[in-house]
């Protein structure tokens, strides 16, 4: 965003943020804007996504002591909540919530990074540039979901005793101490698919590429895709659930399940959750 741009469009920037094409006035998301839909009713809380993420993204195993100190690196975590009104027993089961980076459109982390290490990509991802990161951790401080994970230790030297490094995914770097990391929507897969599609003069087809968590999920609770493509499943689901990416207050029917978490803080997340259902008569 140049200053000329800012001054010329001052009232626009002041009043409307985010808006379509906010990061480049000349270009909307004309090709890709990756988004997710997550059905909490069929998420069973099994943690397959978490393990898949460890395998795909070279997440270090930190061990008990560091886990205890909150230095765990799970990019996607399954939260388990009990009902606030629970008497004696959780008679309606538990509430599971898979929480990963929400790839917000107006990401609170992006504006505060002093060096611009985290910024928006042209396909709507909230990217994290490891080389640029100096580890001020302001992004994590400002993230309402607390899904950013800081490398408090030099994991490459400790987390993978030989021959475990042989398992590491060569498409993903191993992060050293002192930098922030987070869910990338498996950007290495997306980029591979995009460049493959480009060589064939087409766009990535719906379902052609999914992040590791989506691929693993035994109940297929997570849907992933390109929301710019109106025929993609995820775009249809967002539309069907009456969730608009660029609205902070959704006007929707109460029978519709779609919602985004902490929408009132106006980060405009790219992950839509679908409400858990419980048979109240059971």
């Amino acid at each position, binding site marked *: 965003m140049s200053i000329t741009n800012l001054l010329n469009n001052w009232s626009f920037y002041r009043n409307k943020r985010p808006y379509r094409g906010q990061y480049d006035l000349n270009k909307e998301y004309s090709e890709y804007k990756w988004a997710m839909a997550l059905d909490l009713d*069929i998420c069973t809380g099994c943690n397959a996504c978490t393990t*898949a993420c460890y395998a795909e993204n070279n997440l270090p195993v930190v*061990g008990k002591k560091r886990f205890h100190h909150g230095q765990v690196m799970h990019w996607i975590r399954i939260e388990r909540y009990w009902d606030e009104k629970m008497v004696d027993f959780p*008679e309606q089961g538990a509430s*599971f919530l898979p929480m990963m980076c929400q790839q917000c459109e107006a990401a609170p982390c992006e504006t505060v990074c002093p060096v611009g290490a985290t910024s928006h990509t042209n396909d709507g991802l909230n990217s994290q540039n490891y080389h640029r990161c100096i580890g001020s951790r302001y992004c994590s401080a400002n993230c309402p979901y607390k899904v950013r994970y800081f490398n408090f230790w030099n994991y490459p030297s400790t987390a993978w005793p030989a021959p*475990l490094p042989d398992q590491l995914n060569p498409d993903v770097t191993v992060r050293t101490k002192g930098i922030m990391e987070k869910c990338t929507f498996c950007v290495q897969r997306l980029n591979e698919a995009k460049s493959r599609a480009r060589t064939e003069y087409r766009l990535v087809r719906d379902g052609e590429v999914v992040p590791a968590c989506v691929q693993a999920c035994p109940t297929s609770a997570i849907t992933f895709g390109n929301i710019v493509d109106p025929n993609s499943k995820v775009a249809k689901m967002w539309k069907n659930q009456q969730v608009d990416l660029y609205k902070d207050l959704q006007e929707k029917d109460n029978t519709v399940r779609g919602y985004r978490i902490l929408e009132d803080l106006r980060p405009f997340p790219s992950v839509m959750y679908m*409400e858990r259902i419980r048979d109240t008569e059971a």
Partner: protein
Amino acid sequence: MSESGINRRDFLKVLGLGGSSLALTGCGNTDIRSGDELIMPNVSPEDFVVPGLSVFYASTCTQCGSACGVMGRVREGRVLKMEGNPQSKISGGKICGLGQAAVQVQYNPDRLTQPMMKVGNGLQPVSWDKAMATLNEKVGPKSGIKGENFAFMTGAMSGHLKVLVQNYLDSLDSKNHFAYEALSPSIGFAANKQVYGVDMPRLHFDKAKLIVSFGSDFLGTGASPVHFAAEYAKFRKAPRGTLVQIEPKMTMTGANADRWIAIIPGTEGIFALGVANQLLKHSEFTNTVPAGIASLVSKYDPETVSQITGVRPELVGHVASLLWEKTPSIVISGASAEGHAHGVQNAVAIQLLNKILGNVGKTIDGQAKSPFPQIAPEAGSFSSLKAMNDAMGGGKLQAVFIHGANPVFTAPSFMGFRDNLRKVPFKVAFVNAADETAQECDLVLPILTAVEEFGSNIAWYQPEGVEITMQQPLMNKLYPDTRSMGDIMLDLVKQRRADEYKNWPDFFSYLKAAVINMKPAVKYTDTDEHFWYDTLSSGVIHIDAPQEQIGDSFAEAALSLPEVQNVQDPKFPFYLVPSERHYFRDGRHANCGWLQESPDPLTTIVWDSWVEIHPKTAASMGIKEGDYLEIASQNGTLKVKAYLFPGIHPDAVSIPLGQGHESLGRFANGVGVNPFTILNPVFEKDTGELAMFGTRVSVKKTSDSEIVVKDEGPVSTQMGRKLVVTLPADVAQLSKEI
């Protein structure tokens, strides 16, 4: 230069790309200095290896008994990640975390990399020649080992390796194949046999409107979690089915239930009969249900049931009315209902509901019958451990082989398994890592992991037809001094029957020949070679076999539930629920960092064991989270940290299985406790299986306390935030959704 076709610019490019050696190669394959070294390009890939491109190979996951078809992502000759194989009807292209961890088994830093032999009290490395010579000496034709002297313990087994094991035992005239699974489904099998006439019927969750599960954790553990999770997802789509879970300790499945009911362990059968009693009040059932059944259940009115089971009386009628309203339904029993002295009867009483409701044929029918009984799965049982233990204790056994099981770790301490094993003069373990059992053995042979090995597997739960999932190596073996279990077995068989097996130099050729033999059953028309490669590349062989018939009459349902249950024991007032963690099972893969660090879904605890206790009970005993409790049964005491858990019956405490290893590797050793050790000798009456849930314990608070390491923060609710929103099922309009 330009005349030779390389101009300066190109030359520089080559230099930049491939480095100097590559450039020099262009000048002819001459040596650098003395002529000893030929200059090779920097990157010299193997066949089928394209640097930078991943290749997916189909194989089978052997982390549990479900035999999911998987794909291994291979790059530069290394397997990096497991994905589901979409061609597999079992996995449907999906995979669980335990399956993901197969690569951590493969690259485990604590893998056994060479044969070990017991010298004194410790294991010393030896060469394979020495190891095989020892095997030949101790169990070969000249050793005199024969028949009753020899036993082969395996885990659950299927496929062609099982055939080889069987053939080896045959060559020794031995019938001692002990297939041991610590968490075997055999009590359920026995009940199913009694009710339906088959070991395992096929369950159609997607067709059911209501699932009433008595302690069956089909989403987490059970027969085929990945498959059932997919079925569950279909069940939850419009029209949304309702799940009712009745169990003493909330499992992952229970956590997803619309109604979760805490029940005193062992009284599930009574509850089922109480529900049956309520159901039979509907006049529609008077014609379909025999009077004998009606009179059998008539004494279980809600009040009586409530007294015995500890469940509120109105819930009995409630479950009955749900079953009445939502048809077809499906009623299933699981480990916590079956692991009792009257486990089979409990399960039969539960399955009786299916018969009353007429679910058989609608949501429950028979599995396809495999045309190859010799490779059919052997699910394993506890009674085989008991039989082997008795044989060892009697001093009959001269040599035992152990593969795929870790009985020293999983056998309850009352059996004295370790001492009995020591009485056997020659013990051989075939392992990936020197586990507790291997430490006791005289010869420990390192075998290939599942991702390095050929093989064939058949799951005992087949969702559609018969699926033989093929295993193929996803990479070359990591350690040169490890060997294929199949090769070893073939060598052993050849000790006595060299002529019969001379056509097969190794297990690969044996397997290939055997699989090609199956070609007619699959109705494959192309050549044998094509069949073999098609099989390997798709990873599965589908056989459309006819279904087994399952009984839908009441004749089989003879019930003899004990009248008096729920007896108070003042010395051991609590029921012990040894819970099966979905990524740990019996603990054989506890040495994977990913699994240790994957939080338990309900408690979110990592890297530890804990005892779940109801907050009310804890409050009455002054127990806080993190207090060390002494959990004592007649057979031992464990000191475990307390975790206050609302999803457990106040009279029960639960300790997860799978931790407490002494010798498995750096990630597992010394982590947590092993509740197998304190189990009481309570056996299921009909099958002789160990009643896992039959142990009573006392709970004593100690003065020690330590922080419980968990992902959960200090609060366990949403604190008024709109994080997980719950919508009543009657408001939601799933049918309009995409």
